[in-house]
């Protein structure tokens, strides 16, 4: 069956789907990388994504301007990050539990706001695919093979991929990146050099959270053009897992996100091609892969040493 489908169609389909699906994971997981590298595990990514998703949608719904939507999601993410910072850095709450609290807060509030401010699922015109048209009829997006892979995505998707080298450069080549890494590895040493550990962590958590907000908006105003309650459906938690998978390195996260999205896209094709594999197994594939990767023993050693540990000045 489906013999009219060439192998090329299938491979291109998987790649194209995989790139699109990776977009929200990249924003959320790269953001979480900053947060974790500074020593703060933010499990509330899912809740922040939902808030970003709603506010991004709502801004576009009201104004019709997708850029304002992106800005709204960014600001809401920053604010959520500030709350997380107060709770986990200043008040030194247990990070795992406060993250779950952030998740519940985001889930509940975004649902409540949606119900009262919008009411029913509606569509908006968000970011559309850039097709890189040279003239009216000649578009790079129409170039065989390369067009679909490289030139047929929205600006938000390009942003997600551009974020990876940027994050790598910031973390590894800037002074601030050094402070972030040190705050997560040996906060006492950072403190002894007169650098404010809490400030570094605040900024990292807020930047991470702002990116999570953008991740949510990438769903509601770029990929889908709708908002639905609880629409992130666990993506935030997957993003946290991807940070572990990627060993807290931006390029590792990129590989993880692409792998996870690619396998997800693959499993859709497995079903369409009616390969004799039960759909349940196909659905399981991406998660199976993640578990295997997480279980690899050498990764533990790369974990920031002070992750989840609140910094208590002068304790030792």
């Amino acid at each position, binding site marked *: *069956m*489906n013999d009219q*489908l060439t192998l090329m*169609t*299938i491979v291109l*389909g998987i790649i*194209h*789907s995989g790139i*699109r*699906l990776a977009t*929200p994971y990249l924003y959320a997981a790269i953001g979480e990388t900053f947060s974790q590298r500074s020593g703060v595990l933010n499990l509330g990514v899912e*809740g922040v994504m939902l808030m970003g998703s709603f506010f991004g949608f709502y801004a576009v719904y009201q104004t019709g301007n997708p850029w304002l939507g992106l800005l709204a999601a960014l600001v809401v993410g920053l604010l959520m990050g500030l709350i997380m910072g107060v*709770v986990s850095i200043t*008040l030194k*709450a247990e990070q795992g*539990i*406060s993250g*779950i*609290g952030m*998740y*519940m*807060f*985001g*889930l*509940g*509030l975004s*649902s*409540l706001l*949606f*119900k009262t401010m919008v*009411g*029913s*699922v*509606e*569509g908006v015109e968000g970011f559309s695919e850039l097709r890189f048209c040279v003239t009216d009829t000649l578009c790079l997006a129409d170039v065989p093979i390369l067009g679909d892979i490289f030139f047929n995505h929205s600006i938000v998707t390009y942003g997600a991929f551009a974020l990876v080298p940027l994050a790598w450069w910031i973390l590894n080549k800037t002074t601030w990146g050094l402070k972030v890494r040190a705050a997560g590895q040996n906060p006492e040493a950072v403190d002894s050099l007169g650098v404010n550990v809490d400030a570094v962590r605040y900024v990292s958590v807020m930047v991470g959270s702002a990116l999570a907000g953008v991740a949510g908006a990438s*769903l509601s105003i770029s*990929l*889908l*053009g*709708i908002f*639905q*309650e*609880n*629409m992130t*459906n*666990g993506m935030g938690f997957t993003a946290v897992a991807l940070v572990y998978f990627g060993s807290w390195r931006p390029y590792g996260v990129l590989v993880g996100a692409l792998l996870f999205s690619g396998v*997800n*896209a693959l499993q*859709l*094709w497995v*079903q*369409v091609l*009616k390969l*004799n*594999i039960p*759909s*349940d197994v*196909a*659905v*399981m594939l991406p998660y199976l892969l993640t578990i295997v990767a997480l279980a690899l023993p050498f990764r533990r050693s790369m974990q920031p040493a002070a992750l989840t540990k609140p910094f208590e000045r002068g304790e030792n």
Partner: protein
Amino acid sequence: MKKVGLLILLLLMLVACGGGDAADEPAAAQPAPVAEATAVPEEAAPAEEAVEVSAEVDVADIEAVRIAIVMPSTVTDLAWSQALYDALVRIQTEAGGEDMVEIAYTENMFNVTDAAAAIRDYAADGFNLVIAHGTQYGTSLFEIAPDFPETSFAWGTAVDTGSEMGLENIFAYEARAEEGGYVNGYLASLLSESGILGVVGPVEAGDAKLYIDGFVAGAIAANPDVKVNVSYTGSFGDTALAAEAANTHIAAGADVLTGSAQQVVGAIGAAKEKGVIWMGTQADQSPISEETVVASQLYNWDGVFSDIIKKHQAGIYGGTAYALTLANGGLVMSFSDALDADAVAAAMAEGDAIAAGDIDVNAVVAGEQTAVPAAEEAEMVYPELEPVRIALVIPSTTTDLAWSQSIYDSLAALQDHYGADNFEIAFSENMFNVTDAAAAIRDYADDGFNLIIAHGAQYGTSLFEIAPDFPETSFAWGTSTNFGADEGLTNVFSYDPRLEQGGYVSGVLAAYLTESGVIGLVGPVDAGDAKLQVDGFVAGVHAVDPDINVNISFTGSFGDTALAAEAANTHLAAGADVLTGSAQQVVGAIGVAKDAGVPWLGVQADQSSLAPDSVVATVFYNWIPTLLEMITSNQSGVYGGKSIQMTLANGGQQMIYADSLPAEAVEAAMAAEAGIIDGSIEIVAEPRN
């Protein structure tokens, strides 16, 4: 460490307001209850005693008078209440302003007890004439009037002045709305090209019933083959529902619409949007839409109330019943200039014949009653219920455009009918965690809810554990046929939407729509009603053409919108040109269908709001019959022990077709519906993977 303790407390509070949001705000989005007019027996009596008066304001030599109105809606309702208020304002202007005619009014008196209090207050305050502007106020009026013998009271729609009870200070008034209704109906038939007319009524009583009866009779008089679809919203003020009713009529092919009560502003908006003609009644509704409101029956109360004022000042405080008719000018027909002149002339000739007494609309209505099956069909029979409290535990949200929303919408429609006081709804959303759901179910049972619906197959085990502890509470769950008979349970219902039926019908439709011979289906998991849909859909497609390829992909999740969108993209890449799917995740897939311009066949809830051009057909879950069966069973002391199926035959599933579909495809789909209902089509699932 103190800080940490404090913090956990704070977090628990956050969690509480995050997770439990829905349970605490049951049906916050519900409209305020709207009391409904009850038909008064006198209604049917012919208005023999009605007095004919002029239609003109005639108050040249009156003394100062104080008038109070108690009305069910507002003075700006563009309908029943505004028609009266405008007349009184004209009288006031003519008589010399506020010093001569004082007008006081109380709006939105949908609660009859409140209205009674207002009527008594006005009478006690020395108003000369107190008007209770609704049939529902009659009983109260008859109790109050004897206490104020020198105050005049008036009410309508009514012909009973209480003379049999010895009352002498009550006027009654009515509009013979069937007369203008007949003229409107006659004109509508002449203007309609599709031969289908739609009527949006409030409740089948009073003025609305008269108007609609007349409309149907007039439509049939002009064209015996015309189809008049009548739907009652069950409310006077539910604008949104009226708009939906209008949309439904338009979807069913109607190209001329009418309706009554203040709710119709919603319907007029819907008609305007679709460019469909609207015929108004009561007040002039053309300000909403000059182009589409083309004919109106206007109520002119000027003469009636001029006469009442003069009688009052002559010492006659009541005893007269008035009627607005075409003959006495109380009913005025107004037509847009844009209309076909011949049609208008023909309709006006009918109006003249009614005014001259050559046509007796009531006789026509009586004679034609059986000839109007469409009007009968559209009525929904609601049983009498005692107050009931219903709790709903759902895996997603009430706005998911799918499984959860479908049952919530039916509950909300029932609440709309019975009123929030008699029909309480509480719900807990996002209960994807079964343990949380079990806790919520137990809490609701403890709290004394009569019926607790655990809306997912995953909740069965918990339900069976909890049910024995609350023997007089009814529990319900689905998709399932197991009501716990083996466990000895007597208070559990199960329900089971036979989605293979609707799936089959949409499969037939899909087979007609596809040109590429490839159809894509985006399912959540291969279980429950999603599995049934797939089984039926594939069978339906292959019943039409066994060579069509149905590609099925399950996302493994109910809510992964992004993955569902990718699944839809995958299907498109694999050549599919018709898509379908189920669960709340599909909003993502519908967006993809919309962008690609391919048709989407929806199930569960009506998803057309999201992509009106793409969602061309829907297998709609109507839970009302199932819910009513469970509630009435509960109230008769049978708390469970039944498995209820939702089928095409019993109306638990309804097909909605868009106008844009090719006639041939819809005919084939409707034939499949008929075949499933009469049993001539048997759906056999094909083996998969």
